[in-house]
């Protein structure tokens, strides 16, 4: 009886732990608003909702794949060469996604330009490989990657929607504001990204962080 009773709580515990790895990237450890890594791509690719969402998808592929592979190889990788190994893994996935976008979504690839190859040096991917995937199992690393990707894609798309709406009067290329609307150009210029990110961080701090109401 007792031999059967033991596995159940362990499995349940494991499930909650995996669930936590998934959800933490969305709110508590949101890569853009809390960890604040990879802001370069966030600033540059959020001028329109479509670009931002495309960047989010490219990032998602690289983040999840590299987290899983890093978790797989970290056991056999000697400590001294872990960084070159991680970079090789990440840049391989980035190049794959870059070629695939050039071949199948050429217009999106054109408008994201150099920022797709630059996912290689996106600090979130490297940061999660080093700080999480190299020290955890494959399942947990996968969940971490999914959570981080959802957090990143959601926030960059939100920034893209806000900037495109205010700066161009459209959302995902569709005109949603009356024709007489005079766009705030500054929102699609680089300073606009800082303004939007700043406001989102303030909102996040107010509602989701302990003691944030100060």
């Amino acid at each position, binding site marked *: 009886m007792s031999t059967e009773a033991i596995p159940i709580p362990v499995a349940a515990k494991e499930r909650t732990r995996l669930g936590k790895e998934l959800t933490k990237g969305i709110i508590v450890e949101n890569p853009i608003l809390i960890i604040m890594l990879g802001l370069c791509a966030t600033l540059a690719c959020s001028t329109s909702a479509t670009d931002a969402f495309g960047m989010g998808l490219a990032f998602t592929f690289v983040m999840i794949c590299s987290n899983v592979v890093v978790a797989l190889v970290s056991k*056999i990788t000697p400590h001294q060469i872990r960084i070159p190994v991680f970079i090789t893994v990440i*840049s391989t996935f980035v190049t794959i996604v870059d*070629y695939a976008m*050039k071949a199948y979504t*050429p217009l999106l690839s054109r408008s994201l330009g150099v920022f797709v190859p630059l996912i290689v040096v996106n600090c979130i991917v490297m940061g999660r490989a080093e700080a999480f995937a190299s020290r955890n199992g494959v399942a947990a690393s996968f969940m971490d990657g999914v959570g981080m990707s959802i957090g990143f894609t959601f926030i960059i798309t939100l920034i893209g929607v806000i900037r495109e709406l205010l700066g161009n009067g459209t959302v995902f290329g569709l005109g949603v504001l009356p024709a007489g609307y005079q766009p705030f*150009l500054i929102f699609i*210029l680089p300073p606009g990204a800082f303004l939007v990110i700043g406001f989102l961080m303030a909102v996040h701090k107010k509602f989701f962080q302990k003691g944030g109401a100060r």
Partner: protein
Amino acid sequence: MSGALRLLIVLFLVCGIAAGSLAFVNSATKERIAEFARLEKIEAMQKVLPRAEEFIEVSPGKLWEARIGGEVVGRVLAASTQGYSGPIESLVGLDGAGAVSGVRVLVQTETPGLGAKITGQGFLAQFQGKKAEEVALKRDDPAGKIDAITAATISSRALTGAVRKVIDDYQKGVQP
């Protein structure tokens, strides 16, 4: 010693697998990417000279002859210049009479919402049917018939100047 060897082997294996998978992805996408680049250029040429059936490259990357059934009906010229914040590359179509049949911007990095409007039909349609001497901004040249974009004079002037220059050079017989 065995430690150093292990570093070598692991790194070698990881890089080998990475290189192998990239070679595979490259061979799987190479043709599609090249095909798209080719189609895009042809499509741009058809926009500046819609009547033509085929385009024969005369000077690589600079000049094409547009033909219908072997007869030359116009030419497409490549114009590039420095804009407000980077290079502007465009294609200019000339019909048989030497008037502009269309202009299309291929590459530009002008300010979104201001200079980037040089890619819009509102600006580019003005070039249609103009003779070389009319291709100039109204504010710069009394013979000019092109209205600059509000708050984007530099970008408008750069593109207009580049279009004018390739047509002039071509008509003077300067080899592109």
